[in-house]
């Protein structure tokens, strides 16, 4: 490799001065190695320019616009929710202002107390029902009779509902 060969990369990049470019082009006439390199670079560049473009489906725009419309619908939905929440908060503040803070706090206290009482009663009811069911369906002599009875009721209900549904459909 001589001094001129080192100009190859800058020649390809097109950053050589006019004088050096002429020098390198003359050099190409007898340096087969550099000539081959330049040809390779040119071939790579030509083939890169020939990389085919892929076709975009005709429906592409419609698909994008559908997404855009969906987004707008969602956005409008959020605006409505946001406005509803804002109005609710505003009304609450106005209500508190007129009723008075201490009255609102005591109302909240009574409300939460009633909710607690309700939860307690509900828990107790669930516990009582489960205990009774456990006693009924526990180990016993005539359990199969109870199961058969329940199964018959369920089948009856199922058949009736299918019949009424098919009537509705017709």
């Amino acid at each position, binding site marked *: 490799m001589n001094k001129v060969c080192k100009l190859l*990369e800058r020649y*390809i*990049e097109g950053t050589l001065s006019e004088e050096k470019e002429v020098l390198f082009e003359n050099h190409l006439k007898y340096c087969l190695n550099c000539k081959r*390199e330049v040809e*390779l*670079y040119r*071939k*790579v*560049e030509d*083939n*890169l*320019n*020939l*990389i*085919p*473009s*892929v*076709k*975009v*489906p005709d429906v*592409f*725009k419609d*698909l*994008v*616009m559908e*997404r*855009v*419309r969906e*987004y*707008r619908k969602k956005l409008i939905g959020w605006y409505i929710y946001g406005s509803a929440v804002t109005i609710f908060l505003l009304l609450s503040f106005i209500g508190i202002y007129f009723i008075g803070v201490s009255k609102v706090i005591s109302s909240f206290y009574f409300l939460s107390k009633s909710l607690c009482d309700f939860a307690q009663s509900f828990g107790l009811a669930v516990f009582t029902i489960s205990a009774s069911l456990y006693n009924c369906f526990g180990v016993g002599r005539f359990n199969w009779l109870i199961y058969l009875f329940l199964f018959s009721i369920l089948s009856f209900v199922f058949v009736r509902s299918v019949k009424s549904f098919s009537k509705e459909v017709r």
Partner: protein
Amino acid sequence: MCGDAKVIERVLNGDTEAFGILVKRYEKQIVNYIFRMIGSYQDALELSQEVFLKAYIALGSYKSDYSFSTWLFRIARNRTIDFIRKKRPETVSMEGKGDDDSMKPQYSDSGLRPDEEFERKRIQLAVQKAVSMLDPQYREVIIMYHVDGLKYEEISAILGLPIGTVKNRIFRARKILKEMLEGEL
């Protein structure tokens, strides 16, 4: 045909359907860029739709310091890089995945003789494969410059790099490709 700025103004004034003009105008460039970057046609279509939706959502923040295409390409680039990062271990294929023809890219007919067509295809496949094996930072400049036909200035604005660096990166990429394709060309 009205310019991008006018269409954007219409969209921002509430004419949502006008956004379709921008989609139609840039769909080819964006789909091609993403497809060549990730290698899957189906994923490229999906990502491109996301890119356009993102552009629509952020349209209010678009400033005319850069052209709309540059801004759109920036969105596409960020989304593509995210996608590549998440899917890192998978090898990129340039012909798309799946058996379904609709999932594969369609190209236009070249009009060459069969033997010429065969040779052209062989070299083209080798070139495309080599491009797909490039490091993403080199791949993206090659795709932007050679496939999407963007100018150095545009690429520089999209990547936020000086023009000199872009030119240098393209040259390095071609050098790597030349080394990879030495026996094929």
